[in-house]
């Protein structure tokens, strides 16, 4: 299987490909995709039991990108692993393409249609409930701004009370959201305390550390659902995109793309 160094390279590759796709499409969300590249790499190349040749295998693990706008990097992984034909790469965000602006369940390898924040969390809890006892893991990746949505906490309360130990939420704690820092938009407070109060097992990790992520994303220890608070940098990997909220939803120009790819070479 892949060693840590290989996964570091893989994450760089997925970052490049995500930015290229956004550049070709002329729109998309670079910052949100870059912050989760390492998380997606560890999940898709080390942790999750998946089979590109059989996307509907009932024993597969289920990944839900609840922060659906970060999809460019997920799509890069799906293309790379062969879930989706290479011809779809150029049809990202285009009419008739399978890889739409936000994930659609009609694309192979996408479990749930997401986009409206919080939706994926609720549905992931339902999937965990529906696959209880089968050995299937369900992992949902949420943004930190997304935690402002009440439905996330409805799902959290339910998952803990119902002892969905087969459910994991990973939070991309990059400190930013569309219109600025989360602390300025609507402060999230003490996330560890909140999740513990809701009955979840809480792990914190550097969201860009491959060995750390490997440990944090492994199966939870008991019948509590697990939340991994992954400390990340929005726009990670491209110096001018890091911690820059203006890169939330803006595609790079050809020149900017060139510069970004140069840093990720």
């Amino acid at each position, binding site marked *: 299987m892949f060693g840590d160094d290989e996964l570091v390279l893989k994450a760089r590759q997925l970052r490049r490909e995500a930015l290229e796709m956004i550049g070709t499409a002329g729109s998309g969300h670079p910052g949100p995709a870059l912050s989760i590249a390492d998380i997606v790499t560890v999940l898709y190349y080390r942790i999750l039991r998946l089979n590109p040749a059989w996307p509907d295998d*009932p024993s597969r693990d*289920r990944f839900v990108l609840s922060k659906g706008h970060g999809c460019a990097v997920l799509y890069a992984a799906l293309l790379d692993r062969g879930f989706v034909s290479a011809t779809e790469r150029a049809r990202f965000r285009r009419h008739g393409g399978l890889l739409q602006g936000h994930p*659609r*369940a*009609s694309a192979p390898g996408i*479990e*749930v*249609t997401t*986009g*409206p924040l919080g*939706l994926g*969390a*609720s*549905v*992931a*809890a*339902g*999937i*965990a*409930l*529906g*696959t209880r006892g089968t050995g299937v893991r369900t992992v949902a990746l949420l943004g930190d701004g997304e935690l402002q949505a*009440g*439905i996330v906490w*409805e*799902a959290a*309360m*339910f998952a803990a009370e119902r002892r969905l130990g087969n459910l994991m939420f990973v939070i991309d704690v990059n400190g930013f959201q569309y219109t600025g820092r989360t602390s300025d938009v609507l402060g999230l407070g003490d996330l560890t305390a909140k999740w513990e109060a809701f009955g979840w097992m809480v792990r914190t990790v550097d969201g860009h550390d491959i060995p750390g992520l490997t440990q944090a994303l492994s199966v939870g220890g008991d019948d509590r659902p697990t939340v991994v608070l992954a400390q990340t940098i929005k726009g990670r990997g491209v110096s001018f995109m890091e911690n820059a909220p203006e890169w939330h939803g803006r595609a790079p120009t050809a020149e900017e793309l060139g510069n970004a790819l140069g840093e990720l070479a």
Partner: protein
Amino acid sequence: MTTLRDAFGGALASAGDTIDDLFVVDGDNHLATRTTGFRDRYPDRFVQAGVAEANMVGLAAGLAYSGHRVVACTFAAFLIGRGLQMIRDTIALDRLPVILVGTHAGISVGQDGVTHMALDDVAIMRGLPNMTVVVPSDPRQVTALLPQLLALEAPAYLRISRWGLGEVPTRQGPTLGVPILLETGADCVIVASGLGVFPALEARRTLIAERISVGIMLVHTIKPLDSSAVLEYLETCRAVVVVEESWSKGGLFGAIAELLAENLPKTCLAAGLADTFPDGGTEASLFDAYGLNSDSIAGLVRQAIAMTSGQSPSR
């Protein structure tokens, strides 16, 4: 007398006998919606989401995405009101095999008042692609239509009133999608859904005595509407009146008016609720106050016919 929701509860428990991967999701309302029977018989397949209707729908979607069949049921006002985002972007969008059952729909919620009355639910659900929308009038229709909806293995909305006004006099049980012409009439056809059919039948008796020829068409499947059957039944009458236990805009009235405008333009008036928030009260007093009684409907029929008298005869 069996109520619509008692019939629903019984039919649902029976469905649990034959569909072994059927899950039912509740939002702290099973005592009112009568899904208790299913819960008691199949506790492992009954999901209690608590007072959290948006998450209720998300859980239902998740169960469906993971391969199960689902019925999600609570008060229509909250199921649709709080759940719509989730309904639209998972169940309808991905054609999940989920039946949404909204009980206590319409003004016959009664004394609990307007916040608990779903009045726009039919209009909203009718607007969603891939969604079948059914409004039964009596317990027999509920019992017959629920299994037919389950057999679709596709998104559906079943809308059930809290009140009941007896049994509709039909010769046989309803078939999903098929409108029922209860009576023919040359002057006016009243198109009715749900409990609206009962005051409509009463109004017809009054009008017949005045030598006005009035037909009654019962439409339980609002979507998909059987356009050719409806147009056939409305072909020769002079005017149409639509009766439903909803705000008129966008509900059954919307569906019929749209169809007529595109194919068979003729006078079509609405006997559902006007564009106002109703007060609460006893069921009967509300049906009286908001036009769902025989006198109001009969008046609307006379008005509709009068509006056509200056026009050339219908084809």
